């Protein structure tokens, strides 16, 4: 059974106790985001997701979306859930109040997104894209475009998409064929075909706003010649009312491994009316606003499924009986003990748990910085926060989705054969989780972004925002008796990460292939150490409160410390192996000719 109760205690621990999110309410524009308000919203969000979205998860997987004559129908119940979801304002929680949003911190949106995706990933795809489209339009759209489109994207009556991929190119967007021809009056005619467009067509909203990459007639070659256009499914008249259908249609939807409840469409543009967003030929830069947001969102999907996997596996492990405990002094009268007594099973559960709790802190820390980067009064503080977000984006995206997928697999493993059959819902989690490693830039691309772009930017200034606080934390706490066994392994791993970073930067300058060959290992290593840093911070907070109160919060904090220790003993050491792999560079990979494969 897919089991999910929003981990509200944990969320609060991260938000309030570890990250001190109260600081948000001191930023101009976020005055309402007090701890009480945050908690109230989280509880409401949890209820909605647990009660409305979780029951639809299996339905969506089994019924899937259907396509007929250009029309896509979402699984039974999705439309009603969507209406309730947007009606309650969950979509626009951190959108600009000027356009109908609630103006709460982006952090809140992250947490809600986590709950939505934990309970129904396929359902979560459409709101994620609408939020991304709205952010892009808010940042790069003209006033008129903003006035026309943002309120509808905020209230969910219209949804959004991002149209990048074509049949022959996804990652390498310089190769796209879709054309835009100027038709006067600021209108362009868009022609071409896009594929893998999530929520490209559906029955949830009355209009769909496509953000489409295309080339103008005078476009320079490659990525420097890509422009961005807003293309509505239904044209919007001057008075804001919906007009006739635009020249965009859904050609088919894909049959695919998971997220059956979300339609993945081929979209055909036939002289569709479109409006230029941002400057001509500079559309990719605008699109990155949406992609960066979406990458963080996809990272949350990985975490979200990991959480459901852990909760489901734990429930099963407590219930299912098999074998007797090997623990000394354990002698139950039962013929068999619950499998949770077995070290291997516990190890699997704790692997999920330790990662989930640490990754949650990392994601929320990033979200908090996203809010600082937009709302802090001091420009330098904003820039620093933005740079931390830039650095963490590929890590959140790739590391959290890789580990989320692994967590769903572990859930199958804990279930044994019952995990492999549809009835328990575990195999669905695996199938659903798999996409997150692929879309919004496959995880290998994230690794290249990290080593190729983020590492060297401003001579490593992005790194400063992580390494300086982490090193200072270690220096401040490594002599602390209670924290020693947590901080010392972190210090060691952090030192190795610094060394690896220097080596990659140096080797990569002379030979970019050296950096590319170890990029994935490096991202994983960075992810492990970053989560390790989060655990050390959480342990420090918990240590102060882990007193004798065995039933109440004292136990919660004591368990935090235990999980921190588990992380340092069992998960972080993987970084040492990754370090060794990184140091061997590209030699073992580069020794083959293409024909030798």
């Amino acid at each position, binding site marked *: 059974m897919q089991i999910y109760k929003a981990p509200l205690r944990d969320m609060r621990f991260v938000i309030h106790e570890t990250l001190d999110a109260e600081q948000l309410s001191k930023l101009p524009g976020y005055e309402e985001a007090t701890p009480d308000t945050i908690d109230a919203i989280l509880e409401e969000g949890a209820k909605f997701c647990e009660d409305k979205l979780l029951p639809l998860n299996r339905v969506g997987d089994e019924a899937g979306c259907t396509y007929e004559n250009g029309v896509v129908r979402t699984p039974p119940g999705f439309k009603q859930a969507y209406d309730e979801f947007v009606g309650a304002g969950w979509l626009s929680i951190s959108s600009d109040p000027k356009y109908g949003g609630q103006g709460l911190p982006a952090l809140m949106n992250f947490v809600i997104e986590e709950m939505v995706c934990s309970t129904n990933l396929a359902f979560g795809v459409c709101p994620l894209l609408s939020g991304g489209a709205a952010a892009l339009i808010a940042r790069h759209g003209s006033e008129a475009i903003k006035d026309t489109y943002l309120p509808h994207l905020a209230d969910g009556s219209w949804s959004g998409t991002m149209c990048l991929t074509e049949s022959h190119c996804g990652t390498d967007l310089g190769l796209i064929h879709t054309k835009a021809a100027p038709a006067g009056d600021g209108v362009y005619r868009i022609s071409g075909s896009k594929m893998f467009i999530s929520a490209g067509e559906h029955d949830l909203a009355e209009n769909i706003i496509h953000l489409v990459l295309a080339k103008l007639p005078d476009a320079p070659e490659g990525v420097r010649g890509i422009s961005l256009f807003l293309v509505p499914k239904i044209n919007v008249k001057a008075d804001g009312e919906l007009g006739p259908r635009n020249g965009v249609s859904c050609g088919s939807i894909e049959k695919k491994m998971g997220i059956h409840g979300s339609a993945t469409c081929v979209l055909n543009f036939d002289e569709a009316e479109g409006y230029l967003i941002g400057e001509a030929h500079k559309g990719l830069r605008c699109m990155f606003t949406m992609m960066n947001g979406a990458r963080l969102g996809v990272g949350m999907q990985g975490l979200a499924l990991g959480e459901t996997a852990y909760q489901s596996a734990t429930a099963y492990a407590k219930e299912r009986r098999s074998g007797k405990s090997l623990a000394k002094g354990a002698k139950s009268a039962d013929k068999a003990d619950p499998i949770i007594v077995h070290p291997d099973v516990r190890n699997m559960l704790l692997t999920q748990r330790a990662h989930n709790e640490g990754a949650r802190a990392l994601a929320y820390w990033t979200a908090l910085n996203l809010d600082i980067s937009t709302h802090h009064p001091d420009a330098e503080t904003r820039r620093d926060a933005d740079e931390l977000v830039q650095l963490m984006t590929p890590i959140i995206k790739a590391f959290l989705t890789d580990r989320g997928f692994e967590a769903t697999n572990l859930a199958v493993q804990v279930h044994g054969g019952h995990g492999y059959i549809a009835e328990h819902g575990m195999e669905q989690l695996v199938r659903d989780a798999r996409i997150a490693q692929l879309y919004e830039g496959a995880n290998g691309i994230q690794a290249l972004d990290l080593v190729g772009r983020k590492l060297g930017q401003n*001579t490593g200034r992005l790194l*400063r925002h992580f390494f300086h606080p982490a090193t*200072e934390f270690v220096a401040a706490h490594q002599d602390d008796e209670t924290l020693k066994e947590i901080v010392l392994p972190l210090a060691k791993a952090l030192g190795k990460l610094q060394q690896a970073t220097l080596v990659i*930067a140096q080797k990569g300058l002379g030979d970019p292939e050296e950096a590319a060959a170890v990029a994935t290992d490096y991202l994983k290593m960075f992810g492990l150490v970053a989560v390790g840093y989060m655990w050390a911070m959480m342990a420090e907070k918990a240590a102060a409160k882990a007193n004798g109160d065995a039933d109440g919060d004292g136990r919660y904090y004591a368990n935090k410390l235990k999980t921190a220790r588990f992380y340092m003993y069992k998960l972080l050491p993987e970084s040492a192996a990754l370090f060794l792999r990184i140091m061997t560079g590209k030699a073992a990979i580069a020794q083959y000719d293409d024909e030798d494969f």
Partner: protein
Amino acid sequence: MAIDKVAVIGAGLMGSGIAAHVANAGIDVVLLDIVPEGAKKRSELALGAVERMLKAEPAAFMEKRGAKRVACGNIEDDLALLAEADWIVEAVIERLDIKQAIYRMIDGVRKDGSIVSSNTSTIPCRELMAGMEESFQRDFLITHFFNPPRYMRLLEIVSGDRTRAEAVATISDFADRELGKGVVVCKDTPGFIANRIGTFWIQAAVVEAFKGDVTVEQADAAIGRALGIPKTGIFGLMDLVGIDLMPLVGKSLYDAVPSSDAYRALYGEPELIKKMIADGSIGRKGKGGFYRLNKDGGTPVKEVIDLATGEYSTALRPTPDSVRAAGSSPRALFEHGDAVSNFAWQVMSATLTYAADLIPEIADNVADVDDAMKLGYAWKQGPFELIDKIGAAWLAERLAVEGRDVPEFLKLAADKGGFYRVAEGRLQYLATDGGYVTVARAPGVLLLADVKRAGAPIHGNGSASLWDIGDGVACLEFHSKMNAIDPDTLAMIGQSVAAVGKDYKALVLHNEGSNYSVGVNLGLALFAINLAAWPMMEDMVKQGQDAFKALKFAPFPVVGAPSGMALGGGCESLLHCDAVQAHAESYVGLVEVGVGLIPGWGGCKEMLVRGLTDKRGGILGGGAMPVISKLFQTIGLAKVSRSAAQAFEMGYLRDTDRVTANRDRLLADAKARALELAENYRAPEPREINLPGKSARVALMMAVRGLAKTRKATKHDITVVDQLGIVLTGGKTDSTDAVSEDDLSALERRALATLARNPLTIARLEHMLETGKPLRN
């Protein structure tokens, strides 16, 4: 004959620049001009010129006191001064009648055997000599300097039919050894070599740009990096030289070249340029030219002219697609095919074919032409080297395809495989008879480039290599970007010390980059700091200290031979040498304070030790404080010498160190010095000094705090020089304790470890790397 006294007649830009540069060589010089009407002082033209030279930017004098060697006068009262001159240079207006009148005046007073030369750029030697006394003709030649005379290395020498060979030899040798010039002996043809080709080149660009397919900025981007041409491009160059000169030079060349010369077809003066000259928009010396700085809005905005309308608009500094795609490949630039690429092709193909057509008219030897364009126009490669880079066959083929004439000499080169080749490790050029001739080097010239052509390094990595330069001497060459010092450089120093100790007598530190070394690789340092990789950063400091210490105490002599900038760690490498043989154009300084650091690779240590001890290690009298105060200022203000001469004043060079005027002779001189030291060489012993400790530091800082109050020092300046003060005063010591060299190294390391963690230092480093300028925070 020795040149001990020089006279220059004509105190204009060129005459006064030549006089200043002669003074730079330590030679007394007389500078004369006319007595202008209504003059307050009869020699005011020469006096005013020296004043201007003292303020010139870049500096005309290598040290201010050089001006004292220039005696100012006028041709009415002071002609008698010429009687003492061994060499008299005429640098007056380009009018034959006036020049000849001057020559007659000179001839009346000059001593027998003295040499007279003209700095003319446009009048042939035979015309200058027509009708002059034969004895005068025998002593006369043209010495054509380029502006500014101190910095432009080219000197074109043209002799007449009757000129004595010894006169040419004497001036060539003097210009080469004392003035540091690259002498190219030219035929008596219009514009000689450099301006013949250079003027054509500029005209070709003007004609092509006025066709309207490219903007001024695109044109300057096109004629740039891929072609090895300075980033001023052509329009920027005209602004620099003075647009008003263009028609003068152009017209005189037009009149002088043969009627069949390609320049005649190209010649012309666009209306806009006429109008600009009439308006005074003649370039940087006027109110702007093709580019100008508009200061109307407060912050100056760089603007650029539209050749079609004459209107200015904000400069955009574009990088055209073809230029970006070409990188450093000229052929890729030509093959791209956009408007900018086409512009570059039209201008350069015309210029390169013109150059090929001029052999043997202006020179018998392509190497001379290449040298002239490199030394006189700052091209990275001369026209024939550039053709080889493009591919002679490719060029000939494309010209043929376009139906253009292919010069015979170019066809020959295409056939033979290029204008140059390397045979048996030697560079050879193609002669017009189809044979290859080895490029000859004068005695006393040793080029590392030649050594490198002849064989492989003893050791080498990505940042430095060790070469065998003969006679038991090795040369350590830095060759990283800007010759910045990184861990690879330091590792190579270690390897070199081992290798030289085993198999060689001495080591020279030298390279042929534009700058000896700009110091530590700041990018790497900042990256490590951003990573908070403190142990690694501290290792790098220690590694540098150890490498330089190994140089100092090596069992063989080490001679530093810098040219251009030797900053920070580059300067520190020289401070650890037994001797320095510096190029006259050496810009030496400990500049670390500018990026919020202090010298940490033994710079403080060596400056203290050499200030406080004598040659035998004894303590000098006079107390430590005056030495420390001077060092505190020199390092605290990050002073950089603007010549080798100034580096002596600042204490970066010792009086036992020596100077070479000509870059091409630097390595040979350094090698000779190294061999001299290698006789009975004994490595120095580590020294101990006494330093005053905290009380002295407090005294130093009181003065600095005064500066802070008057805002001459910033908050972070105080923090940085406080750390400097700790090192220079010996840390926690007092004058009764001996401080060892290793103690000083440890103090340097501690100061750096403190400063590197300071966010304000990080901001300085970042600013320097991103803007190339120091941040005052």
